[in-house]
């Protein structure tokens, strides 16, 4: 799927640490695409993205675009942000389980914490960091 990156809401969108191993992931986020790694030897999908397959030790891994849909695995409304989030309004930190089975840390946006639940279907949105990348966050799936 392709979703243009949106301007960030009042919530902070700090730029990620990027290195040669992860550059392609972050470049894709700026284009509204969510990538994971796939092992060319054992076919495992891998999160977080890395050069080595932690399942079979192969170094033959490739980028693989996922649907950007999933469900909340766990979440918390954090009232005490630190770092870039210090002084920010309460925000939702979560793990989302992608439809492809991978669980990734993220934020849930465009929702009140009281309306969230484990298992709630969500879809990815991209928040521009202003540094050539966008944070893959998730909002409740709009049907």
């Amino acid at each position, binding site marked *: 799927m392709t979703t243009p990156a949106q301007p960030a809401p009042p919530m902070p969108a700090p730029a990620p640490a990027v290195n040669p191993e*992860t550059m392609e992931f*972050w470049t894709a986020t700026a284009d509204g695409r969510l990538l994971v790694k796939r092992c060319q030897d054992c076919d495992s999908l891998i999160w*977080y993205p890395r050069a080595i397959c932690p399942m079979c030790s192969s170094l033959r891994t490739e980028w693989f675009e996922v649907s950007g849909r999933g469900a909340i695995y*766990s979440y918390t409304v*954090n009232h005490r942000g630190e770092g870039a989030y210090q002084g920010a309004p309460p925000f939702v930190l979560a793990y989302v389980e992608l439809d492809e089975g991978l669980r990734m840390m993220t934020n849930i946006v465009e929702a009140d914490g009281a309306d969230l639940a484990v298992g709630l279907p969500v879809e990815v949105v991209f928040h521009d960091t202003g540094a050539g990348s966008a*944070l893959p966050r998730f909002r409740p799936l709009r049907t």
Partner: protein
Amino acid sequence: MTIRGQAYIAGAYEHPERKIPDKSIARVHAEVALGALADAGLALSDVDAYFCAGDAPGFGPISMADYLGLTRLRYTDSTETGGSSYVAHVGHAAAAIAAGKCRVALITLAGLPRSQPVPRPSASALAPEAGFEQPFGPTTVSMYALAARRHMHEYGTTGAQLAAIKVAASLHAQHNPHAMLPKPVTVDEVLDSPMISDPLHRLDCCVVSDGGGALVVVAPEVAADLARQTVKVLGHGESPKLTAGGHIDLTYTGAVWSGPRAFAEAGVTPGDVDYASIYDSFTITVLQTIEDLGFCEKGKGGAFVADGSLVAPHGRLPFNTDGGGLCNNHPVNRGGMTKVIEAVRQLRGEANAPVQVPECQIALVNGNGGSLGTRSAAATLILGREDA
């Protein structure tokens, strides 16, 4: 080879202060080192092995060895697994002693997060996962909150059950003159305290304290010559708990692996444990750990703690009788050292009288480092009375 009976804890010392505005971190390391050695009846000049973790200022174990004047070292270990480091160090020291590498091992922890807050280590920005986690604003409390939420979802655990863990710790802390939070609290007081990262309230969290502690682990022939009652190291296990390439499970800790390893080496079972020091960075840490160690069935931890099982001296599993990190002391945000120290007190019969477990023969210590919400390290020790 096994370490069972190959090493003894001869000295243990917890710094009595909880806020230390006028000393350096190195000096507090020195104070706890001297305290533990005095407890053992030994001196710095007897030490031939030194163990420390990331709280030690300077270059691994070398700067503190130099500061302390440890000129006879033939073994050093700066294993860094967060709050579980010092629990692991006891096992490492016992293994080194069993292998004949050293005879008198000193382990120290000290720091001043209240008086001299320092930024988080910048090295974490270079961690391979950093870009995929840090931008989303994870904090220590929120990582444990994610684990608590998932445990609640899968097993029906409640906030009131988590609160019961704090209540038990507070009932113990009231007998500890050094405890930061010596006042007993109720379940309602925990649930009414400010929400930090739901479902965890302020009173679900451990204290932040300056201070430290130290241990002296010695060879059997050294122990035999000491006047002080020693504690026998019976078993040790460690395990990291990882994110599994995108298949993280937030409902259990590495104690599911470290526990059985320690029990097997010690030759005991959970039913043999008279007292347990359980890492209590947050209430959820205790709940998951007692399930993982086999003190109750997985998912039944809530019911286990809610009926007073953790309350000393007569509960089924008296825990953290000093008040633990939840009420007494969590120096440098690292609770493993004080967990070992309180287990030593219990096995020597020197815990505060109202919470001393009668005939305490076997104690378990479990440390956890890192974050239950991402990557963590578990270390389990089984200790016994001198004659165990």
